[in-house]
C-alpha cells in the first residue's frame, strides 16, 4: 500500500514539475514538448528497478518505445481533430485515447508481444 502512496506522490510531483515548465515556456509548440515528457516514466522506472531489478526496467523501457510511437500517432490525431474537425480540446483528447490504445497494442502484438 505504501508503495502506491509513494508512486502517487512522486508521480504527481514529477508530472506537476514538467507541466509547470511547459506553462512558463513560450512559444506553445515548444511548451508542447513537455506534454510528452517522460514524467510518468521518471517516477516509475526508478521504483521498478529498485524493486525488481534492471532487467525488469529494461523490459518496461522497451515497451515504452512502442508507447511513444503510439503517442506520436495519438498527438497527430488530436491535432487533426482540433484543426479540421474543430472539436474542443477535452473531447478531442479523450476520444483519441482509443487511437493510442489501438496503436500501442497493435504495435506491441506486431513486435511479438515482448520487446
Amino acid at each position, binding site marked *: 500500500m505504501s508503495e502506491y502512496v509513494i508512486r502517487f506522490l512522486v508521480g504527481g510531483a514529477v508530472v506537476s514539475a514538467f507541466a509547470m515548465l511547459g506553462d512558463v515556456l*513560450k512559444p506553445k509548440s515548444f511548451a*508542447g*514538448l513537455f506534454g510528452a515528457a*517522460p514524467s510518468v516514466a521518471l517516477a516509475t522506472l526508478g521504483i521498478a528497478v529498485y524493486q525488481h531489478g534492471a532487467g525488469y526496467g529494461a523490459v518496461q523501457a522497451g515497451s515504452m518505445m512502442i508507447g511513444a510511437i503510439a503517442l506520436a500517432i495519438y498527438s497527430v490525431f488530436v491535432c487533426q481533430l482540433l484543426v479540421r474537425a474543430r472539436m474542443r480540446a477535452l473531447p478531442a483528447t479523450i476520444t483519441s485515447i482509443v487511437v493510442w490504445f489501438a496503436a500501442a497494442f497493435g504495435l506491441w502484438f506486431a513486435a511479438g508481444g515482448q520487446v
Partner: protein
Amino acid sequence: MSAPIRVSLSSLREGRWYEYIIRFALGGAATVFAGLISSRYGASVGGLFLALPAIFCASATLIEKHEIRRNREAELRGERRGQMAAALDAAGAVLGSGSMFAFAMVFWLLVERTLVGAFAVASLAWVAVAMSAWFVRRQFRVARSAPRRSSPPMPRLP
C-alpha cells in the same frame, strides 16, 4: 535573430489553484495505474503505459481554457484561438514523443549497466532530441514561409 524560446512566469498566474491539484492528482494516478498494470499483466504491458497521454488531456484542455479566458478578457471570441493553441500543444507533443522514444531507447540500452547513468544519459537524450526536433521544424517553417513573404503584395481588387 532574437531568442525563439522565452520564459514567461506570468503564465503561472493564469492557472487556478484547483488546476494544479488536478494535474498533481492525474500525474499521481497515471503513475499508480502504470504500476498496477505492470504488477497485474507484467513489465512488458506495463511499459506501454509509461507513454499513456493521460496528462496531455489535462494540459491541452487547460491551454485551451486559458486562451479562451484571455480572449474573453480582451472582449474577443476565443473558442477558435483556444482550439488552435491546444493544436499547437499537440504538434509539440508529436515532437516530444520522438524524444520520449529516444529516452526509452537510451534507458533500455544502459539500465543493465548503470541505473544512474541510464537516467542521466536518457534525460540528456530527451532534451537533445526535443530541442533539435523543435529547431529543425522551426527552420523548416521559416524557410517555407520566406518565399511567400518576399513575393510582391497582391494587387487589391477595386
